[in-house]
């Protein structure tokens, strides 16, 4: 297989055996980017020169006999909402089209320490608001499995790049499903970690109490390796949890005998494509065959998650996005008569339709007279939703569900109707409200399009998730086959 389609752990083995050099890996990936990027359009910015320089550094380390980290020399694509010092960070928005951060996000610092090689910054829905990357101010990314279809979103660029061989691994961010849903659509692995396990410092905020950075990879082992590298306490993020961080690869044993898995019936009902339900039922059989106990359970407040999510996320967003005003950085409307005029025109021209819609909704939800009915009520419903999960986890180690109601949809199919687009996230956003971890991993196919299965864990239960995901992956059943042919 081509170098660009290998996994990080395979490449690492070859690197330490000196079968290949880091520079060769980087060249292979950039060669692939040259070949397919005009069809996929995964990247907003490419950083080839620095990538090659970083790769040569790694080769020097290897030549010097130094022990290298599992991610050393491994190409990684970064969603364009994580700040990279000296490299443009746009959030796929006109309002930040020229913003060059003077600092690195904590995750970038950690990847640098691991000597991984950044390939570039990936496309996304503007400010991570969307489920298709169609809300990018620049262009829409295409799904490598069918380029007429969306790659999902908002981390669509990262997922498409991993699936198309335009990087080896990637980072995405997930506020309501933005890692898991594109991972499902692109047939790759995506982990939304426990809130507080990966530092948000340097992640451009959409909804602060829901946002989390996580890995998008080709297999579960790579997912564990990237998660090892980026997770852990950060004093620069007050919401970062101090916890004993295990080596997550130690969970990759293949043994899940006796593991208790619940399948919430609310995630298998109306609104979910019957073909997707069928895929999930098949995966249940696989888990049972591996020795897990699987049974149906219930998360009774599930139907309230969508409205609660949209009120909370947009309320926080309306405040988080207030800073884009044309004063200190980014786009500015130049002919303003006065400051208020400048604020209003800068923001109206700088933000796209979905971002404006969410700012409007969030502003409304927080405004006088509506706070209790909407925002505060949503915070209370969040308590109930979290309570559902707490209760379920008294009985089960993991929950299993679809990631999205269907496979990747066609470009333009849902963009006109916001509510319909929001429905795409009904299986994922409760997890963000509860702050718990969940993985999307390739579970099967519907109409030759990949469909993910979601494993949901307890707070800081990434180990259990990875254990089950790895066992499933190793079983070989309906596992991810990378799409080498169509692009």
């Amino acid at each position, binding site marked *: 297989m081509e170098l660009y389609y290998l996994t990080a752990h395979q490449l690492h083995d070859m690197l330490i055996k000196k079968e290949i050099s880091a520079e060769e890996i980087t060249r292979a990936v950039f060669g692939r980017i040259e070949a397919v990027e005009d069809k996929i359009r995964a990247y907003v910015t490419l950083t080839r020169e620095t990538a090659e320089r970083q790769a040569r550094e790694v080769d020097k380390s290897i030549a010097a006999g130094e022990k290298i980290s599992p991610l050393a020399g491994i190409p990684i694509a970064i969603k364009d*909402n*994580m*700040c990279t010092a000296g490299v443009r*960070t746009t*959030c796929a928005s006109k309002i*930040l089209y020229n*913003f060059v*951060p*003077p*600092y690195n*996000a904590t995750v970038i610092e950690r990847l640098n320490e691991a000597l991984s090689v950044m390939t570039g910054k990936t496309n996304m829905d503007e400010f991570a608001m969307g489920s298709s990357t169609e809300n990018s101010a620049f262009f829409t990314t295409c799904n490598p499995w069918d380029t007429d279809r969306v790659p999902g979103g908002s981390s669509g660029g990262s997922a498409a790049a991993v699936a198309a061989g335009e990087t080896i691994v990637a980072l995405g961010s997930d506020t309501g499903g933005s890692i898991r849903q594109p991972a499902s659509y692109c047939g790759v692995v995506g982990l939304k970690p426990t809130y507080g396990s990966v530092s*948000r*410092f*340097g*992640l*451009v*905020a959409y*909804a*602060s*109490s829901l946002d989390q950075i996580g890995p998008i990879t080709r297999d579960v082992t790579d997912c564990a390796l990237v998660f090892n590298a980026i997770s852990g306490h950060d*004093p*620069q*993020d*007050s*919401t970062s949890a101090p916890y004993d961080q295990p080596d997550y690869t130690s969970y990759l044993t293949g043994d899940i005998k006796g593991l208790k898995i619940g399948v919430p019936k609310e995630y298998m009902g109306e609104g979910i494509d019957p073909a997707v339900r069928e895929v999930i039922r098949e995966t249940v059989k696989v888990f049972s065959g591996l020795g897990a106990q699987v049974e149906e359970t219930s998360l009774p407040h599930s139907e309230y998650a969508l409205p609660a999510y949209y009120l909370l996320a947009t*309320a*926080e967003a*309306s*405040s988080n996005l*207030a*800073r884009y*005003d044309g*004063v*200190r*950085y980014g786009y500015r409307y130049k002919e303003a008569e006065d*400051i*208020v005029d400048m*604020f209003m025109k800068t923001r109206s021209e700088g933000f796209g339709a979905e971002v404006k819609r969410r700012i409007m909704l969030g*502003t409304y939800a*927080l*405004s*006088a007279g509506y*706070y209790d009915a909407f*925002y505060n009520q949503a915070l209370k419903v969040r308590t109930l939703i979290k309570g559902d999960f707490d209760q379920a986890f008294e009985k089960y180690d993991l929950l299993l569900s679809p990631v999205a109601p269907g496979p990747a949809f066609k470009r333009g199919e849902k963009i006109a109707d916001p509510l319909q687009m929001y429905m795409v996230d009904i299986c994922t956003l409760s997890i963000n409200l509860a702050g718990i971890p969940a993985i999307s991993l390739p579970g099967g196919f519907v109409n030759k399009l990949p469909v993910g299965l979601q494993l949901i864990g307890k707070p800081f239960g990434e180990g259990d998730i990875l254990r089950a995901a790895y066992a499933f992956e190793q079983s070989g059943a309906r596992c991810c086959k990378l799409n080498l042919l169509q692009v």
Partner: protein
Amino acid sequence: MAQYEPVIGLEVHVELKTNTKIFCNSSTAFGADPNHHTCPVCLGLPGVLPVTNKKVVEFAIKAGLALNCQIAPFSKFDRKNYYYPDLPKNYQVSQFDLPIAEHGFLEIEVDGNTKRVGITRVHMEEDAGKLVHQGTISDSSFSLVDYNRTGVPLIEIVSEPDMRSPEEASAYLEKLKAIIQYTGISDCKMQEGSLRCDANVSVRPLGQEEFGTRAELKNMNSFKALQKALVYEIKRQIKINEEGGRVIQETRSWDEAKGVSLSLRSKEEAHDYRYFPEPDLVPMVISKDWVDEIRTTLPELPDERQARFVEQYGLPAYDAIVLTSLKEMADYYEQCVEQFNNPKAVSNWIMGDFSRLMNADNMEINDVRIQPAQLAKMLQLLEKGTISGKIAKTIFEDMFATGRDPDIIVQEKGLVQISDEGAIESIVTDVLANNPKSVEDYRAGKNQALGFLVGQVMKATKGKANPGMVNKLLKEKL
């Protein structure tokens, strides 16, 4: 005609004297070049997150304790959303429904009586930046923004509407300033903006219980401005009432140069700050142990010190109030008394010439070049009769200007008092011989002639003659 009673409440912002800002480690030092004390966090760059400075919480608790407040066992930060170019995130991190301290009070002296003014709450928040204009804000075709002060920690202290005159408001602010300065958490310099005061003012017919509609007064940059603005605003509101009009609830800005307050109504849109819990910061749980630990760091506060000055030094209440109103002044006083044990004499000098010269030069105590020990030494020279009271004033002025020791000045200028009876007697004899008319007047019963003769003797000795001795000798000879 109805008698009106003003109702006043004050909102005071105090800048805390920490090394770093409230949510990042940029310096708070005053006077840096524009935008030099900034970092990604206080500039509100995309992606940054705040981390609370522990010292700010401790200082706020300290202020709460000094103001007799209850310290909240559970407190949190909230976002206050509004757009202004000096506010980098276009929201201010502040506290809304769970402030760090509530339900306190302080006591002021009004016409010899003690009055208690309630403190509604003390909360923490971040300061905004500074706008620089050519001319005034509205004349200038552009503004320049300096974010050095953005994120400097503030506490806002909100009083109950308990004050009934501009004098009470002034007394409250003086007392508040003294208490905060004593705790050491702020310099409280109104000139540098580390103490800022807004006032809520309304009037009501005397005897009416219900409050009138209030106006919020802003932009008063000195105690004098506060006093003037309140007098103006009270008059304005009474006039509206008397003319049958209605006071509108609005924000008004005090124009010190013109001596009027102006409505800011035209600039206001409906205020809707959309407060919500700051998701980037976690709640604060303030244990009793933590509060007790901070309580042990509280110094003696103005009221306690004032009472002690009366008791320990036998000072009149007035002296004690004035001397303890500034911590530095009270410290200076006590250091001086330690070396010259005549408390009232020291008090007279500090409240008299010392304060007069200091105010004339717009100085603060720490700027004064006379050390407490030097003042004590001068008072010893005066007590021993080495110098006269008149000479003492001259020496004091020299000391104030140069910081030199009093005995050096006395030696150098030859200002030692002449108490040698023989020397004074010969001068007295001369003066009597040269002023026969005055001698005659005195003998004819005109007592004021004696004063003239004393003056002549002092003039001849350049003020150095011991005045008691001069009087005695003159009377004998006459």
